């Protein structure tokens, strides 16, 4: 037992103190609590203020403050649409009602002020309803059947729940797309028009039909006392209920809201035609027009948000006062006063991050007169380059000194210059985010503040795997460090056209160009930087095998540079490696397939290569007997995970360590009876992957490490083709303390000196910061004598610990976590972390503690006093000693 205790101490002590002090909470991190793109909204009179009750696409039920849009409470239901999807929200007396699920329905009543659960009713339906509609204490389910519609009505209150009536409605068509309820009328859209029926009458009836030309069924919506639907050209048709009948209103062609007489309109400022000749709105107007009692007001939006999708309003007691809430295509929720002023804005598009990248802002102040000063990295030890770099540096320092003196003369140093707050340690980076709601955001990593946003007319489908990846590519061609303009490219599938390439400045959000690619894109790759080119070129691979390099001039570099291999066309069960062959003349490039790997009856779920910016500090590790074991660090190695179904209908996972240049499989392993999600991390000479073990019912993490052996073949250059080393693969499996892993990531630092940590994000919403040596496959058996153990590696215990102080986000739960991003900062000790999901969270962590940072409570006064005192004392003693010597000499 004693050994175990020692072991525990070793494990805790060896990992360093990870937690924060109490006063450090919220100091280095920030969190944004979001709710998702709003689908339905209701105003609630809760207490003194009105609150807004919303249900969102992310299965969230939330209440917002109607004045400033702040979150009062929220409940995130299950992720899966089957159990978590919110079908309807409503009010019953003082409570809030939500209906969620599909065939198993939960009807829940909530207290509106704090969101406490008052009552829960469970309903088991035979099948999932097409539509659920709440009217006071009646809940109607609509089932679309081949011969018509079935409407089942339930009655409920805070205590009881009773099944009411069944009703059959016969319809002419069965292709019902969307239904909405308007009090006692049920209105559904079909390809040829709208059908409607009375919902509360008990006798069977026939649905009545109102034809609407060119109907866009999915736009059917209830707005106050009206029903509105759009046609494919975007014009609105309005219907009103009169004596239980739906009547078309020819005079209302704008979006209307609950408040009588309020109309909202968004013009289309530019029309486009797609490949099939259909007209669509290419650009909506920036400004929204509201009309109330014949008076038009313009609402100016700070940024372009795409199409206005929904409008809700609340009329106060004063007929002139109303509050409008507008929901836009980009997920933005904007609240507007009658005068057109904006009350609050919520960026809910950030809940659907598709791609995100850290971009270095750079140390230099762009507005200063220094100008770009390049540091030549290639041939660092060439005397000429060294001299050039040195001269550049001296020039820069002289310029800085001159600037400082001139600022002293002009007494400008007293001003709080924004450039001065530019962090010297590179702790602030720009996080560029592309969302699935067609928006690009630039966010400061240090504060989470949105710096810019940019709309793009993209299209995202719910495809998975490699399909979803090819929907948009965010490639950073040049960051702010070089001094010049930063440049990034977003390649996206245009909503009405082929793939487009948008070039923009990732630091300011300024769009440089937006042009269609004349190819059916299969994948886009960022090529490495070439010596004589300052921006990273992009390789575009078409579905037909066509290849292009952007910019075109970069083809020249390809010819002179080292041979380039790409993984082309990863389909579900095939990998093909190709050599990029630039043509002898011109800017043409072609791909020659050189290796292939087929994994029949399995599906490749991920291909993970090493982070291209990663640097490795040491080439080997010291063993217990002081000899060195050299790491096998193949930069071309990738960890490939493939999933398949075996003969007993259980899933299995195949793992391959594959050289992407030669196509050689260095190691392969299979795990039987597993479940997803699978997460992989590959870095330096190690890789880890996690999966759920269905048989043992636990999440497992497997750690692999590759070693060359006791000798190193070639220390300077690595060539996959020439290298004949077969790596030794050390492997070990561990039991994870979290059963539902959502994200797995390694920390990365500037020079790779700092030890690595693994960040494990769980479904509960915490991120575990696990030192990598705990998952080292070389952890010795428990009974190994102390002398035989390698330094710094604790003995093997199958379970990984989860001490509370190593939860990176302490009590700041991150709901609906999707992924973790890490990036090195300018300080070697510090890694920047960005976690996204329903919430966004940014922080910085120091895996080996802040060894290059002064402590926060560092006592500057004390230190200066001591130094000053020492100088003074030495001066005085010198004087005294001189005096003594003098008197001695006189004697």
């Amino acid at each position, binding site marked *: 037992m004693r050994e175990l205790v020692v072991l525990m101490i070793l494990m805790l002590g060896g990992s360093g103190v990870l937690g924060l002090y109490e006063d450090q909470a919220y100091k280095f991190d920030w969190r944004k609590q979001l709710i998702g793109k709003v689908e339905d909204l209701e105003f609630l009179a809760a207490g003194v203020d009105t609150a807004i009750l919303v249900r969102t696409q992310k299965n969230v039920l939330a209440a917002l403050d109607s004045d400033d849009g702040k979150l009062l409470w929220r409940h995130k239901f299950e992720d899966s649409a089957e159990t978590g999807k919110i079908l309807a929200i409503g009010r019953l007396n003082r409570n809030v009602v939500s209906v969620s699920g599909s065939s198993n329905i939960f009807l829940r009543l909530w207290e509106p002020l704090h969101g406490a659960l008052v009552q829960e009713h469970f309903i088991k339906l035979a099948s999932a309803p097409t539509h659920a509609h709440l009217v006071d204490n009646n809940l109607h389910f609509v089932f679309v059947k081949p011969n018509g519609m079935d409407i089942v009505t339930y009655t409920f209150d805070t205590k009881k729940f009773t099944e009411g009536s069944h009703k059959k409605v016969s319809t002419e068509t069965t292709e019902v797309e969307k239904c909405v309820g308007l009090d006692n009328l049920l209105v559904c859209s079909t390809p040829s028009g709208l059908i409607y029926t009375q919902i509360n009458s008990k006798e069977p009836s026939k649905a009545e039909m109102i034809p609407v030309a060119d109907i866009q069924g999915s736009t059917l919506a209830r707005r106050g006392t009206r029903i509105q639907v759009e046609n494919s050209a975007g014009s609105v048709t309005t219907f009103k209920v009169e004596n239980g009948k739906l009547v078309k209103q020819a005079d209302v062609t704008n979006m209307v809201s609950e408040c009588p007489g309020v109309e909202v309109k968004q013009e289309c400022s530019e029309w486009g035609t797609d490949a099939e000749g259909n007209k669509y709105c290419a650009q909506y107007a920036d400004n929204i027009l509201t009309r109330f009692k014949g008076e038009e007001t313009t609402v100016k939006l700070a940024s372009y948000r795409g199409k206005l999708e929904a409008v809700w309003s609340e009329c106060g007691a004063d007929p002139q006062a109303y509050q409008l809430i507008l929901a836009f295509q980009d997920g933005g929720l904007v609240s507007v006063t009658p005068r057109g002023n904006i009350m609050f804005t919520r960026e809910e598009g950030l809940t659907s991050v598709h791609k995100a990248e850290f971009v270095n802002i750079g140390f230099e102040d762009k507005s200063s007169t220094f100008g770009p000063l390049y540091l030549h990295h290639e041939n660092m030890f060439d005397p000429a380059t060294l001299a050039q770099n040195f001269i550049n540096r001296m020039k820069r320092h002289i310029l800085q000194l001159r600037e400082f003196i001139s600022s002293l003369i002009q007494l400008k140093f007293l001003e709080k210059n924004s450039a001065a707050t530019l962090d010297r340690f590179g702790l602030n980076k720009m996080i560029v985010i592309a969302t699935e709601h067609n928006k690009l955001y630039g966010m400061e990593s240090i504060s989470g503040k949105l710096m810019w946003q940019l709309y793009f007319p993209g299209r995202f489908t719910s495809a998975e795997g490699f399909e979803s990846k090819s929907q948009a590519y965010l490639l950073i061609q040049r960051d702010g460090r070089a001094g010049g303009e930063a440049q990034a490219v977003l390649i996206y599938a245009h909503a009405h056209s082929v793939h487009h390439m948008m070039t923009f400045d990732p630091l300011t959000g300024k769009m440089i160009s937006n042009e269609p690619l004349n190819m059916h894109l299969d994948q886009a790759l960022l090529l490495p930087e070439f010596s004589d080119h300052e921006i990273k070129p992009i390789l575009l691979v078409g579905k037909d095998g066509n290849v292009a390099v952007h910019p075109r001039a970069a083809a020249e570099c390809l010819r002179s540079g080292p041979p380039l291999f790409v993984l082309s066309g990863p389909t579900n069960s095939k990998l093909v490696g190709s050599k990029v062959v630039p043509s002898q003349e011109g800017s043409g490039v072609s791909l020659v*397939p050189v290796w292939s*790997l087929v*994994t029949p009856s399995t599906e490749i779920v991920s291909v993970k290569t090493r982070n291209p910016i990663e640097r490795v500090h040491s080439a080997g590790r010291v063993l217990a007997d002081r000899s060195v074991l050299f790491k096998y660090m193949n930069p071309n190695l990738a960890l490939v995970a493939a999933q398949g179904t075996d003969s007993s209908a259980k899933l299995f996972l*195949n793992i391959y360590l594959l050289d992407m240049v030669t196509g050689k*499989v260095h190691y392969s392993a*299979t795990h039987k009876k597993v479940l997803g999600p699978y997460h992989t991390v590959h870095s330096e000479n190690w890789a880890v992957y996690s999966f759920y073990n269905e048989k043992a019912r636990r999440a*497992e993490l497997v750690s692999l490490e590759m070693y060359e052996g006791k000798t190193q073949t070639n220390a300077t250059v690595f060539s996959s083709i*020439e290298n004949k080393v077969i790596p030794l693969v050390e*492997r070990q499996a561990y039991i994870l303390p979290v059963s539902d892993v959502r994200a797995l990531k390694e920390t990365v630092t500037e020079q790779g000196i700092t030890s690595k940590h693994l960040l494990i994000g769980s479904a509960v919403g915490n991120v575990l910061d696990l030192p990598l040596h705990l998952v080292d496959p070389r952890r010795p058996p428990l009974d190994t004598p102390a002398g035989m153990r390698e330094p710094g590696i604790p003995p*093997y215990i199958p379970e990984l610990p989860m001490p509370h102080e190593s939860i990176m986000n302490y009590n700041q739960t991150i709901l609906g976590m999707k992924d973790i991003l890490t990036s090195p900062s300018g300080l070697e000790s510090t890694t920047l972390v960005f976690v996204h999901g329903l919430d966004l969270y940014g922080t910085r962590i120091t895996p080996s503690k802040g060894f290059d940072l002064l402590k926060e409570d560092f006592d500057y006064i004390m230190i200066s006093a001591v130094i000053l005192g020492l100088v003074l004392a030495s001066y005085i003693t010198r004087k005294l000693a001189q005096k003594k010597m003098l008197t001695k000499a006189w004697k």
Partner: protein
Amino acid sequence: MKSVILLLLITYSSAELDSDSDVMLELEHSFDHGDTWQTRGHVTWSSGRTSADQLTLGDHQKQALKTLCAEGGLYLLRSNVQQAGQAVGLMRSYTSACSLVSSGMVDTITLSLDHRSRVLGINLSAAAPSHSPGLRDTFKTKIVSSGVEPGPVPDTAAYIQRLEEEKRRQEKGDVPDNRSFLAKYWMY
């Protein structure tokens, strides 16, 4: 019903291939980065043994290999793979032309097998530089295979056993507390 079961059995047996099933490679090679392909011959691999039937290289082919080596080019190989009489597909691999020349045209084809011993891919590599490098009339080919191993599992048994042993010993009370005085009473 019987026929259905039989059918199931047949499909099952075809899915689970024998580990020592024959693999036949119909090799083709290219000396001009895939523009033209020439037949190289057949190589068969059965239960760990390689039998090769490769064509002799013509003078122009040897010349092509030599020039390819001079310009640092790649020697491409593709093969129609047949396993247990069934076509598995066209697989590609390559190696540098120079390594082939320096090894004296001795090469190894590694078959990557999956957990059902099906061929996933082939990998061509030249042998280590030999004492008599140069061009030969035919390739001397060896086939090796690399299979999939079962992935590691957490070793809980040993750990639990150790914990229980520890517990039993403590219950018996025959574990002498040989900690030092300080370790016994000093809690920090």
